[in-house]
């Protein structure tokens, strides 16, 4: 009987611990804005540097390692606003966290790099194209473009001998692809800036063949490739009146600032703990394609983007198309 009592006690203690742990996430005294490391962090570079404060509220700006942290922190309320990959924003919304997409902020930093020149995507039939992250958005985007162009593909690390299909092969990040291009094991690969610039610098004879956002525009009749968006939790938007307009102005201002001040932008990121090591210049910043388009104008582009991602696997956007309420009006 004693043992049973001890066992029940342990369960109660564990449950209590979990409750307190869950509860402390909800308390916060200030506003927090987070951004994933890498090129998307450029979207708030000036804010990372100036740390502007809204009214009487204290705002903290933070770089986090990636999309997984963004989604977790927005979902549990630790952060209020964030730059998030567009499909992740839809995902968070569909999984029950009430958020709003405030603006579209990055318009494509993916490029197809090759050590051999091709003039048309169909020239890649019979070749192996490396991509970063199987099942991720670069993969789904490229497959979507190939589908729209009527080019067949299959997953393989060896090329199709008959030359009828494009072989798609995957690495987990740009850092692994660059050595493969250098040794000649890979001839074509899709990379995100600033890894593209790093590859072009390190791999002799490599060229930037296509911008994925240009190919996207080709197959979607000129739509923007809305890769990442700025989102806010509905409760924070309601609580801090006027903050969306205030933040929108800052995001808009940042676009011109990073274009004019690459070195300062880099320093701002480094100070905030970014692991970005490539020396940024005006050209790389331009290739990162940071912009600012309010949600109401970017809505149709974002919807097309989400529809395309969901056409492969609805799980990529959290199961279904989000309702129109996701767009901040």
């Amino acid at each position, binding site marked *: 009987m004693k043992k049973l009592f001890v066992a029940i006690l342990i369960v109660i203690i564990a*449950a209590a611990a*979990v409750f307190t742990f869950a509860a402390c996430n909800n308390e916060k005294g200030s506003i927090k804005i987070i951004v994933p490391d890498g090129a998307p962090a450029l979207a708030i570079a000036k804010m990372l540097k100036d740390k502007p404060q809204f009214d009487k509220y204290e705002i903290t700006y933070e770089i986090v390692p990636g999309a997984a942290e963004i989604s977790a922190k927005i979902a549990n309320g630790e952060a209020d606003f964030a730059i998030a990959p567009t499909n992740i924003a839809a995902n968070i919304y569909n999984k029950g966290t009430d958020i709003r997409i405030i603006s579209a902020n990055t318009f494509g930093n993916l490029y197809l790099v090759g050590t051999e020149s091709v003039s048309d995507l169909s020239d890649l039939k019979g070749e192996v194209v490396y991509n970063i992250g199987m099942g991720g958005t670069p993969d789904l985007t490229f497959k979507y473009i190939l589908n729209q162009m009527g080019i067949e593909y299959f997953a393989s690390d060896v090329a199709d001998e008959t030359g009828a299909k494009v072989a798609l092969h995957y690495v987990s990040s740009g850092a692994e692809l660059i050595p493969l291009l250098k040794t000649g094991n890979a001839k074509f690969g899709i990379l995100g800036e600033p890894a593209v610039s790093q590859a072009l610098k390190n791999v002799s004879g490599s060229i930037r063949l296509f911008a994925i956002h240009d190919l996207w525009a080709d197959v979607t009749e000129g739509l923007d490739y809305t890769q990442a968006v700025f989102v806010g939790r509905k409760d924070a938007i309601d609580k801090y009146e006027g903050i969306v307009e205030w933040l929108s102005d800052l995001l808009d201002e940042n676009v011109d600032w990073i274009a004019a001040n690459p070195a300062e932008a880099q320093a701002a990121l480094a100070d905030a703990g970014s692991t970005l090591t490539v020396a940024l210049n005006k050209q790389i910043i331009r290739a990162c394609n940071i912009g600012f388009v309010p949600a109401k104008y970017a809505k149709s582009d974002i919807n097309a983007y989400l529809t395309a991602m969901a056409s492969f696997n609805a799980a990529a956007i959290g199961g279904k198309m989000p309702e129109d309420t996701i767009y901040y009006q």
Partner: protein
Amino acid sequence: MNKAKLKSIIVRFSPLITVGVFILIWYIAAIAVDIELILPRPALVFKELLALISGKTFWTAVGGTLSRSFTGFAISFALAMILAVAGFAIKPIHRAFSPLVIISRAIPTMSVILLSLIWLTSQTSPILISSLIMFPMFYSDFYSALNNIDKGVIDMAKLYKVGAKDIVTRLYIPNILPSVLDSVRSGISFNVKIVIAAEVLAQTRQSMGISMQISRVMLDTASLLAWTAAAVAISYALELIVELIKRFAVKWRRA
């Protein structure tokens, strides 16, 4: 029902009770957190698991991961056995190989993974990683198992002119078998873990690792946990098989 009987029933089902308590804590935690993306409820994960099992991609992924695990396992096992026997029979060989064993034991798993991604393909690097990590563990286990055999018994066998074949089949093999099977048992599920980790980083097609990674990228935590449960079940099944072989082998040894 008397007290002793009740006690024996509790002892017998205690692992199941632990699993039940674990799921209960999970359930309470999931309700407390109440965010599916961070911690989905057990029921959702089981539903996801059932959906996975009924799909074809699940079995190709499991098959791929298991075949890579077995290949890596077989390579490290064979290599460790050959070298342990050679090192046991001829001591200078053991000394000569000791740096290799020390290096392979000390080398950080992550650097083996990262290096092999540069050197090998996504299909082969999990195999290399698993064999490199399993090899030193097997080698030291096998070598000490051989050394633990009572020298006196072997000397006596030699004194009585027992044939070399009989010494091997009736003395060495039966004596090292239990500890070899013990290390196989603990190694086999550890190996599956390593292969899955390697598959995530190598982006191996048709693997449990890449399936977990895709679930993660899509923020599908329920599916990630379902894959995890599947991996646990598979490891457990493998250990159980080894355990059965061990019981069978012990019987054979006694016969």
